[in-house]
């Protein structure tokens, strides 16, 4: 097997609170190979988002090691981290996080601005992705003129524009109805078919069933990590 794209060893994260350090992640160990499709599950407050933010180089662990693509992330400076967020990782948020003052095309193209791509190429590539997520007719619309599902498609298109090797999605369907969620999940499945590594956080078992591997968090620890085939029954058993 090839070397893992993500390797996390003894990862801990404490939040500083008025009552002192509050541990949220407690010795997390996990290794994810290129091309995997992983669902992260667990009750609210179990530390999933905290974990994803660290994987996405948006936040730093208190201790432990995170190796991304053979680079220990702790050794990277802020410019290198920005470059990783720009080129290697596409992050999809529960709340979409589009720029409200920019139109759809510009929103999708924004990562290319920071990659230094010139305008013509930016617009060409943004257009292709706009088509791919089914909104090719509305390049000049503003984010507040389209539905939540459509906004999430735009956010996914934005995450894809620099052809990342890794997509991190934190409850991407959390604000969407089940029909729209289905569409979004199909989009992720397609992307995984194309070889992109996908890690997705979700509450819902049927969403998680799209993944090929399921990881369950409980109180800041990984309590379950197995291929998806055996997961649904156990998940149902646990929640029942």
């Amino acid at each position, binding site marked *: 097997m090839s070397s893992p794209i993500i390797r996390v060893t003894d990862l801990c994260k404490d939040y500083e609170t008025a009552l002192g350090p509050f541990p949220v992640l407690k010795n997390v160990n996990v290794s994810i190979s290129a091309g995997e499709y992983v669902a992260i599950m667990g009750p609210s407050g179990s530390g999933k988002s905290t974990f994803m933010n660290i994987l996405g180089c948006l*936040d730093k662990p208190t201790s432990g090691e995170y190796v991304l693509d053979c680079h220990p992330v702790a050794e990277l400076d802020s*410019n290198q981290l*920005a470059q990783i*967020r*720009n080129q290697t990782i596409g992050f999809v*948020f529960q709340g979409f996080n589009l720029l409200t003052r*920019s139109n759809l095309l510009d929103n999708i193209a924004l990562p290319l*601005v920071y990659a230094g791509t010139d305008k013509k190429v930016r617009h060409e590539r943004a257009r292709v992705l706009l088509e791919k997520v089914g909104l090719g007719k509305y390049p000049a619309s503003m984010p507040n003129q389209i539905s939540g599902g459509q906004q999430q498609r735009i956010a996914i298109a*934005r995450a894809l524009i620099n052809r990342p090797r890794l997509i991190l999605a934190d409850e991407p369907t959390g604000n969407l109805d089940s029909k729209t969620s289905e569409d979004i999940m199909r989009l992720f499945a397609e992307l995984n078919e194309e070889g992109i590594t996908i890690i997705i956080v979700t509450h819902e078992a049927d969403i998680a069933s799209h993944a090929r591997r399921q990881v369950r968090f409980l109180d800041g620890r990984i309590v379950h990590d197995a291929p998806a085939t055996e997961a649904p029954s156990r998940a149902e058993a646990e929640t029942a």
Partner: protein
Amino acid sequence: MFGAMLGEAWHAMGANRLRTFLTMLGMIIGVSAVVLMMAIGQGAQESVKQSINAMGSNLFIVLAGSRTASGARLGGGNAASLTVQDGEAITMLEGVKAVAPVSFGNAQVIFGANNWATSIIGTTPDYLDVRAWSLKDGYSFSDSDIRSATRVALIGRTVVDNLFGDTDPVGKTIRIKQAPFVVLGVLESKGQSLDGRDQDDTIIVPLTSAQRKLFGAQFPDSVRMLMVQGESPEAMAMAENGMTSLLRQRHKLRDGDEDDFFIRNLTAAAESAAETTRTMSLLLGAIASVSLLVGGIGIMNIMLVSVTERTREIGIRMAIGARERDIMQQFLLEAIMISVAGCLIGLLLGIGGALLVNLLTGAAVVISSNAVATAFAVAAAVGIFFGFYPARKAARMNPIEALRYQ
């Protein structure tokens, strides 16, 4: 990349127009105040400079001193102590270039049906050189006119306007205190003197003609004033000392006696007037600059608010790969655009205001490209300086904390 950021900055400015405008207002007021004040200050300096040049360079006037008559001191120029011969002796001194003896008075002047009260200067041909005054028309009188006291006159612009209108004055005969004088030439216009007198409201006649036919003289050859021109600015002190001892000797004053004449260095006086205007215009500029500073602080204030308001946006940008430098540039660019746009509007207002001042009060204004360039550079600098702190604050944000900000 830069084009995209420029577009973004433009967008951000447009997103809250009223606030952008209010921010700019500080800049607008500051720049227009600076431009206006500099225009007025430089205009004042320019007109003082012109007056000094028009006066003639390296000038002294020597006045006959006060004479004590029965215990009452009379004003300067009343003693009959200064003579044409004094002037001739001064001409020989080292450091002195030329001397023109002057008698003056006022008289009613008549041409045809018009009459005009003006000042009459009786002097020698050297006077025009000493005062750096040239003729616009006709020619000057000569030393032989002095010897024979011919009745000829050179007349100033204001006199021409009041007596002749459109008629060509050269060769015409005017009456000064009833005595007929032939107009030989018309003097070039000199405008106002430093003390605000109209220097063109005058008539120059040969000294002898003035003394014999117009004013009379208490004693033959006595004059009220000598106008002395030094060789160079450096020779002024030497010339002044030389004149003082020469005149004391000629007037047979003993040690301990007071001088019976006054020597005044006009050039030095003029320079102190120039210095005063320079100081004044610096002061005006400095006061106006304070408003630029206030404008800059306004920009900083709004940029800080804007950074806080857009924390989430900053987080999003960082999450998709913006470096600290990119965020920094974005906010700096916005600050600079606001200040430069404010500066442009301020420039237009300032220049307009200066022209209006000129139109309404007639005061000279000078809008130098230098002042405009300075205002522009200062505005850009203010934008960078006061935009820097908020921009850095934005750039130093932690991505995840910025994203969590509600």
